[in-house]
């Protein structure tokens, strides 16, 4: 294993070559907010929350997919990044319909936690109030498109870990949404094994157990890592 050294937030960090900036930063004690990223799933860099500044690069780079390199000088916090992250969260809130007070995930929601973390006490952008639907056709689970932030964690976990590939991203632009099967009601998709992994990794209240009321959903995305590790290593954890 080759070790490389870089500077993150003024600290010198040593990491294995091939590591992402996110991994290096976390190892070095810098917290970078993430949303679409979930350890155990392939990265997609969809949410842009993990953007960082790199010396000599005029563009911001998403830490979750950028490889760490020898001698890099990286900043994970700055007024510019703070402003940007807040705007990203505001965009996510305003493009959907998030009424936290009645949401199944209220109090256990990654989006909500991030809103607090980036200091979003209100939105400076106008709410769009899209007209979106709720799919309760599955016997065990529900999908509320109003709360979906298109992070695609569900798409990836279903295809990469469960191997069922029920989910996809359909349509474009403001009509973009998660679809099951060939855009069928979820309950009509035979490929679904009812495993519930998508519900578990969903960062918001978009996917939930049917019958759950307000504040009752507690997702456990970290359980995915147990599964992934167990598969990779075979033996005891």
């Amino acid at each position, binding site marked *: 294993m080759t070790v490389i050294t870089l500077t993150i937030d003024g600290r010198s960090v040593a990491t294995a070559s091939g590591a992402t900036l996110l991994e290096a930063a976390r190892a070095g004690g810098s917290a970078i907010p993430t949303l679409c990223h979930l350890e155990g799933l392939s990265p997609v860099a969809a949410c842009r929350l993990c953007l960082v500044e790199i010396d000599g690069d005029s563009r911001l780079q998403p830490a979750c997919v950028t490889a760490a390199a020898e001698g890099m000088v990286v900043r994970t916090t700055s007024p510019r990044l703070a402003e940007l992250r807040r705007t990203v969260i505001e965009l996510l809130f305003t493009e959907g319909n998030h009424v936290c*007070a009645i949401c199944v995930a209220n109090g256990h929601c990654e989006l909500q936690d991030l809103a607090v973390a980036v200091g979003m006490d209100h939105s400076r952008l106008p709410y769009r109030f899209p007209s979106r639907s709720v799919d309760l056709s599955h016997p065990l689970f529900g999908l509320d498109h109003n709360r979906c932030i298109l992070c695609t964690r569900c798409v990836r976990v279903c295809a990469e870990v469960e191997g069922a590939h029920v989910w996809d991203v359909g349509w474009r632009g403001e009509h973009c949404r998660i679809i099951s099967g060939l855009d069928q009601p979820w309950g009509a998709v035979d490929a679904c094994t009812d495993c519930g992994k998508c519900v578990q990794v969903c960062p918001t209240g978009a996917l939930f157990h049917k*019958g759950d009321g307000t504040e009752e959903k507690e997702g456990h995305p970290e359980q995915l890592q147990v599964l992934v590790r167990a598969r990779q290593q075979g033996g005891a954890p």
Partner: protein
Amino acid sequence: MEIPNPETNQPRTVLIDPVTRIEGHAKISIHLDADGQVETARFHVVEYRGFETFCEGRPFTEMAAITARICGICPVSHLLAAAKTGDKLLAVTIPPAAEKLRRLMNLAQICQSHALSFFHLSSPDFLLGWDSDPAKRNVFGLIAADPELARSGIRLRQFGQALIEALGGRKIHAAWAVPGGVRAPLAEGLKERVLGQLPEMFAIAERALALFKQLMDTKLGEEREVFGSFPSLFMGLVGSDGRWEHYGGGLRIINAEGSVLVDGLSEDAYASVIAEAVEPWSYLKFPYYKPLGPEAGSYRVGPLARLNLCERIGTPRADRELIELRQRGGRVVSGSLYYHLARLIEIVACLEGIEALLNDPGIEGRHVRARASVNALEAVGVSEAPRGTLFHHYRVDANGLIEKVNLIIATGQNNRAMNRTVTQIARHYLDGAHLSEALLNRVEAGIRCYDPCLSCSTHAAGSMPLQVRLYGADGALVEERIRG
């Protein structure tokens, strides 16, 4: 908080958080006839703008939270009515411990709500007098004048709130009652703690009762006859054996003479006896007893109605007070000032009920939630809120998405009685064609008899934001006074 209007896709403001609620004024209009006498008065309710449509397209499991947030004044009542409606959509019988826990929470809710209404909002009027300095005619003035009473009222309210919080997790936020039961069994140690506090709470309630009964017999003799004293129907839940009821039982309607017009009616059949009139000047619907029409069929709900409807309460201390109430006011008490007395009696009934429930080993059962999927597409749930009977009526699709909602709330059912009360007070106290402070104070107190669940009504006494307009026979505005 805003959610879209499904029809127009335009933003629509939903009053969800009681803190950010737009504080409304209670709007009252008084209309004079050609002789300059008061013809009629109206209490305009401008809240509750079509909130039933917000719910359409949502999973029915969210109804508890949606309604509790919209009606932030009595969230527990909405939780219970929504949960009961949900039970019926699942077509389950909930575990016995769950029903006992829900009952316990409702009693705690009635207790704390009545304590707020009586001690904080209304007693400054009775104790400090109508014409006392408005700046002092509030709970702070009460603390100065009778610190013991003020403090004990706060204690009683805290007792109820703490019990709700201990059951539900957080004071009003968590949707603790869910379709199929409740979320968590009785917490360890709660029983002992609450039983230990009860003696003090009984003493508080009894002291307030003694004080208020004495006031009714002396200082408030005139108000007793003027504040909403008229014959009317009464409606509410009554237990199968004629006992006072707040959670189960059947609907009963009586008239002013005490004749039973409807008895043991299931909430499922409410629409067979109750119709809802719409008035152009109010967002509230006006329910009435169908066979008698909107005027004669209007009825009162709430504490006084419940006490008028039942044969007995079923617990010794409260029953003693009920007998005394009937000695004072007759078998069917028609004066709305007695609502306050009824509240105090119900506080005693709640305390006794809490004691009995906690001593029932069945409440400690660990199985508190039945799980099922949607098995019925339409259901009606009912409970007695502190202010009166609350109906939730949902129709869902096969997956449980709400297609139609109808809610009948206590304040709507009492709205006609509030109008009549304001009319009666205006007739008695209107001084020529002038809106005096004394009139405003009494109008406020008249409305407070019903403890309406409006944001304007939760202001401290003497500071209810009021907009009173006086209209002449020709419809022209004679005078307007705005307070608060």
